[in-house]
């Protein structure tokens, strides 16, 4: 599949934003952090920038962005529609939670802050789950048609959110910072496991469709394309026929694992062991940045490595 920059940015950025929102809400529910307005401005601001930036970027690849509002109407059948609806609805609890953190003394906000925190957690996770289901529900792309896709999206969202949370709490010197660094570390390990399982499944997966089943000619023997319908690439080949050399894929996987998981594991472990808070901040910041690049590589591969069954009509033999 063609790895569109807008969708890669959308899924990684909004994933991290929703993850951060989950941990902020969790911190409120467990009373882990003091309620300081400046921290609220920065933390919720960052979460909203990531979420809104991602959502806006996802509309850039639309042919008619001005009609994007229509995408919320078909929630009964379409995962994309459910995602759009959940994304918009989630702003209510998340926004109120942010307001409460800014004005904790406001009685009404304080009263509803508990349910709003729960609402933020549920809606953030639901939105990420719906995003994942857009991909996991497609039978035509067997690489994605799996629970592993959903697991990966949820875990990587919580992982990147936890890394941001650890960095922010460390910046403010909160007591909870160490706990969030440990949570981030646990989720990085979890994320690495999920991605390794995802790739293992990809390697061991049996073909779902073949050129024989695509043409109905399997009884006549091994089916090969001898002539393409056109003399140049068409939309289908550009969108669905993206190819990445196997050796590059292997190299990029190593880069994704190294930057996205192993380096953050090392940097976070060091940060947890150290006492010096300014060095801890530097380590966490480096972890967030390198981890972010690793996640972008991982997401690029998620698209580039996935093959679509329509390519069976363009020379592939089994997908």
């Amino acid at each position: 599949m063609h790895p569109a920059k807008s969708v890669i940015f959308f899924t990684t950025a909004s994933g991290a934003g929703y993850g951060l929102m989950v941990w902020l809400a969790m911190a409120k529910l467990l009373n882990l952090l003091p309620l300081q307005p400046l921290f609220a401005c920065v933390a919720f601001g960052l979460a909203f920038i990531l979420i809104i930036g991602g959502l806006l970027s996802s509309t850039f690849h639309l042919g008619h962005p001005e009609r994007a509002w229509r995408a919320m109407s078909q929630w009964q059948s379409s995962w994309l529609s459910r995602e759009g609806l959940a994304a918009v609805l989630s702003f209510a609890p998340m926004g109120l939670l942010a307001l409460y953190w800014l004005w904790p003394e406001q009685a009404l906000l304080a009263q509803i802050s508990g349910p709003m925190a729960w609402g933020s957690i549920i809606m953030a996770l639901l939105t990420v789950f719906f995003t994942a289901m857009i991909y996991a529900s497609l039978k035509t792309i067997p690489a994605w048609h799996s629970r592993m896709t959903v697991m990966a999206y949820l875990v990587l969202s919580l992982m990147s959110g936890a890394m941001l949370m650890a960095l922010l709490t460390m910046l403010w010197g909160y007591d909870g910072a160490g706990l969030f660094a440990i949570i981030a570390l646990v989720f990085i390990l979890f994320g690495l496991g999920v991605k390794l399982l995802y790739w293992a499944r990809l390697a061991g997966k049996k073909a779902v469709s073949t050129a024989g089943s695509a043409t109905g000619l399997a009884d006549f023997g091994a089916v090969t394309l001898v002539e393409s319908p056109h003399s140049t690439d068409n939309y289908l080949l550009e969108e669905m026929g993206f190819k990445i050399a196997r050796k590059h894929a292997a190299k990029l996987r190593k880069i994704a694992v190294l930057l996205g998981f192993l380096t953050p594991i090392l940097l976070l472990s060091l940060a947890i062991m150290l006492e010096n808070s300014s060095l801890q901040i530097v380590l966490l910041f480096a972890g967030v940045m390198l981890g972010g690049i690793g996640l972008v590589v991982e997401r690029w591969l998620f698209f580039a490595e996935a093959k679509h069954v329509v390519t069976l009509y363009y020379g592939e033999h089994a997908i």
Partner: protein
Amino acid sequence: MTSLPKNKPQKKLGLVIDLDICVGCHACAVNCKEWNTGGHSAPLTDIDPYGAKPKGVWFNRIHTFEAVHEETGRSRTVHFPKSCLHCDDAPCVTVCPTGASYKREEDGIVLVNADTCIGCKLCSWACPYGAREYDEDEGVMKKCTLCVDRIYNENLPESSRAPACVTTCPAGARHFGDLGDPSSTVSKIVAKRGGVDLMPEQGTRPVNKYLPPRLKNIDKTNDPASPRMLAHQDSSSDGAGLLARWVDKLLS
């Protein structure tokens, strides 16, 4: 609108494509383009049509495949036109977030409403057959309409009220009719010739059917009536005449 019709369409208009007859002339694709660039989903935009890399929207594309039998080594070349199969369980319809993509209850035709399509391309990802194409110029998805603007068109003579690809096929390889009615001509052809679904494992239950090429004696292993397949290195003189055998002996 995006959900499939609650009452399953009784009438299932569709195509039956005879792979035994198709000669791969591309006339169906050309006439499709000709009609539809002025029809329901007009225009079928071309990008750089006279340049080095022309591309554009086509509802019908003709591929050519070769099937080589593992045992006999014999091959068949099959021309393979492919357009929307107007599936019973059309995944392109249910993934649509706006309701622009829909399946008609009255005849099962799958269409796109260009006024509400946002051009997210997800329907093209969900379709196993490559039936949906993005019009870069208009920013919406386009697809075969089964010539919905022809088949019911009272301004046309009755003989022309069929999809453009069917009326133009010079070989008679394409049939149009109601595949939901077991007594229709198309249903009978499908039953008689063992018409197949493309990628049945994808669970789309396509309406369009493909008739596989008829088996010929050359497809059957060791049929004495079939022509010999000569090996590249012929070391035997079996069946040769007296003189030829003598020469063979002399030379070897």
